[in-house]
């Protein structure tokens, strides 16, 4: 049963990483930076899912969470800033 207990600790570490990065992602106000933190969250989630014996979910999480979602956010930021001629984003700070 010793191996199972050791596995519990590894899962606990991954869980802490996920919780911390999720909190950081929610509190990062700048969408550009948030995209990067979300990519990190996606990676941590993928590690956690692998440890929870769910390679299927980890596989889609690693592709979606670290590539697709941050990329979509970055493209949206680029589009929104591209048409705002700069002034709009500075106003909100």
């Amino acid at each position, binding site marked *: 049963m010793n191996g199972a207990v050791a596995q519990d600790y590894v899962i606990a570490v991954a869980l802490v990483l996920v919780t911390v990065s999720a909190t950081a992602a929610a509190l990062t106000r700048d969408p550009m930076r948030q995209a990067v933190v979300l990519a990190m969250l996606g990676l941590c989630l993928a590690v956690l899912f692998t440890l*929870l014996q769910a390679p299927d979910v980890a596989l889609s999480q690693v592709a979606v969470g670290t590539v697709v979602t941050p990329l979509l956010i970055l493209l949206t930021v680029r589009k929104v800033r591209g048409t705002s001629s700069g002034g709009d984003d500075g106003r909100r700070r």
Partner: protein
Amino acid sequence: MTILPFLSAGWIFLAGVYGLVTSRNAIHAVGCLAVAQSSTYVLLLTVGYRRGGTAPYFTDTPLGTRVVDPVVQALALTDVVVGATVTALLLGLVMQVRKRHGTVDPDALTGLKG
């Protein structure tokens, strides 16, 4: 370590919703929604975990091995991919709002505009 994993899922959900409520940028709000959504995956998979179990594939593991719950994995799996496309739909809406109203601050969007 008995109910802590479930509580951390609850914390992630609240963190995501907090970001959503206090958001001043619709793109940031969509990102926070993705965070809140990921809490459901954490909850589902921690509920379905079986101590000492392996992944539910029997290609090279003998039948009758202890495995974790495949039902919750199936639930989370489809939602990860579908969630990404819904995020894309919301970001598309943000782009349209930006084009029509000239802002992405949800608080500045007061009233209906043609």
